[in-house]
């Protein structure tokens, strides 16, 4: 499996989907923007795109468009808490450099 969710991340995603009341799963991707080239995309999925690669990780259906897949190969999505702030974090082995705040990156 090229991309995985940590167990904690999967639990939170299921939780959020539940609270939202609808949604098929989670879409991951990258797009070009930001100060250091690329940025991650993390969205709920309401309608399935036939081109997307689809797989299951800890009970969450994950969708990734084929173009993004090469940038995300081997990535683990984790859910962490830092002080009062909590959220998702991409542990991506492909990243060579990222901007100061880490919102965008380069491969």
């Amino acid at each position, binding site marked *: 499996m090229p991309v995985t969710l940590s167990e904690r991340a999967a639990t*939170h*995603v299921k939780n*959020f989907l539940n*609270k*939202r009341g609808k949604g098929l799963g*989670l*879409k991951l991707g990258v*797009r070009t*923007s*930001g*100060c250091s080239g690329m*940025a*991650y*995309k*993390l*969205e*709920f*999925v*309401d*309608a399935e795109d036939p081109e997307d690669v689809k797989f299951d990780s800890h009970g969450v259906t994950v969708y990734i468009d084929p173009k993004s897949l090469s940038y995300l190969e081997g990535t683990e999505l984790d859910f*962490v808490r*830092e*002080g*009062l*702030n*909590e*959220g*998702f*974090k*991409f542990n991506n082995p492909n990243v060579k450099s*990222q*901007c100061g*705040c*880490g*919102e*965008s990156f380069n491969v």
Partner: protein
Amino acid sequence: MALLQISEPGLSTAPHQHRLAVGIDLGTTNSLVASVRNGVAVVLNDAAGHGLLPSVVRYQRDGDVEVGHGALARAAEDPHNTIVSVKRFMGRGIKDIPDAATMPYQFVDAPGMVRLRTIAGEKSPVEVSAEILKQLKARAEAALGGELVGAVITVPAYFDDAQRQATKDAARLAGLNVLRLLNEPTAAAIAYGLDNAAEGIYAVYDLGGGTFDISILKLTRGVFEVLATNGDSALGGDDFDRRVYCWLLEQSLLHTVGDHDKAMLMAKAREAKEHLTDHPEARVTAVLATGQLIDLVLTEAKFNELTASLVNKTLAPCRKALRDAGLDAAEVKGVVMVGGSTRVPRIQAAVGEFFGQTPLTNLDPDKVVALGAATQANVLAGNKAGDDWLLLDVVPLSLGLETMGGLTEKIIPRNATIPTARAQEFTTFKDGQTAMSIHVVQGERELVSDCRSLARFELRGIPPMVAGAARVRVTFQVDADGLLSVSARETGTGIEASIAVKPSYGLGDDEVARMLRDSYAHAQDDMTARNLAEARVDGQRLVEATEAALAENGDSLLDADERAALDKLVAALKTALTDGDLTVIKRASDALNQGTVEFAARRMNLSVKKALAGHRLDELEI
């Protein structure tokens, strides 16, 4: 690296463009901050996991400021410097706080708004509120990991312009950008209406720590319209505590206690009330400064008896709001309960009985307002595309201006939805009048003296014209926050004058309620007063027109007898105007009108002759 949140499909924010926005419920007793994360509105907790921040600010000798639980814990020890329920003083003058003497604070009467003397100097309620907002802002920024774009702050539906302005000032002082002030019941409706996709007529019963509001809302396909609001700004959970506190004193045969004991017993009273929510009785034990021991048991039945009149006091505004909205209790589809005090079982039962249904309590009544505000903030910050739901709030009291004779001309009627703009044309009263004074008032009464004066300004430079020829267009505009601006424009010349109404602080909510009540009670008097004032204005105009005409050609067109008769009629009307009642003025006006018929006809002939003299018939366009 930065932590990410899940976005709605297609709405991932670009890096560095996260638009963090929060909703803040700046309450009398407790305040909260909430934000939409991963598509769901959640209350942001502090490091200790508390969601509610007690709206308590304690000023210390060294200038340090303590806010929240720490300050609340010290309230009993340091009552003079620990400001509780500051929201009650927002935008109020000392005369608006009738129970000031029973509070432990040293009030300083300052122009506009009362100030509080603390160990760290004099503080205005705006500054105290700003401390609470600062705390919430810091908490939100730590929790969201970035700077806030803005905040939606909720206010009671009954807050007048002065109180809304004070709230905005407090936010600015705390470094918050106010996206919008939102009425609390509307926020609650957003939290319930959208999350549960409900439609129909809803009542929002909000019994907070210090204020009570009832609002009748109409929810249709995500559009909120506030049909009517009513309430009592001096009624809340604190009053329930006070009843229990008084009972404690009574049972202990005490008359007065020190500030320290008072704050301690108030806290005990509150604990007892909260305990009774799900227990049949509560035990109160305390040791006073005098060493006297208090050990009492308060049963639910006794508590209900003590507070029955308070519960009933909330039902009268419910009835009025329904009447304002033109609805029956049976037409209300659901009742939303807001405010921690609505946990009291007797209140839920009474409200259920009044509306004939079980009230909705499935969202936490303490959090529902903040959650709704967060949802709204998320939309206003631009984080939710394709979403066009509108938010309609209402003007609590009619806005208008003063016309001749001290009468009110209503431009924006009460309960008009905002934002709104209305215009009306006015004209000059006297020949050659070059300026017009515009007096903006708020209230339901017919006479200006019974309404509240908001602002005055003058439109100058109107070209001299005969009375009634100038066209002055006066536009009233109320923005989404409920703040008013008025502009006047003479349409012939385009000259303009305008004013943003920065209301003088000081109109209390109860005053709003009183003004409303008065308008019902005095409906008949008002009509009579209006008729009299109108008759006076008409009579005055008649006197002036006749005198002008007499001066011009009274001698050439009238013989001495005719002239004397007219002079007598004019004199009679003048006397009637100064001290006559409606019928006397009407009779004198009619008499003068009758008496001048012949004179007017001769004047008309004269001017026609003048116009025709020296012209041949074929030169005239007929």
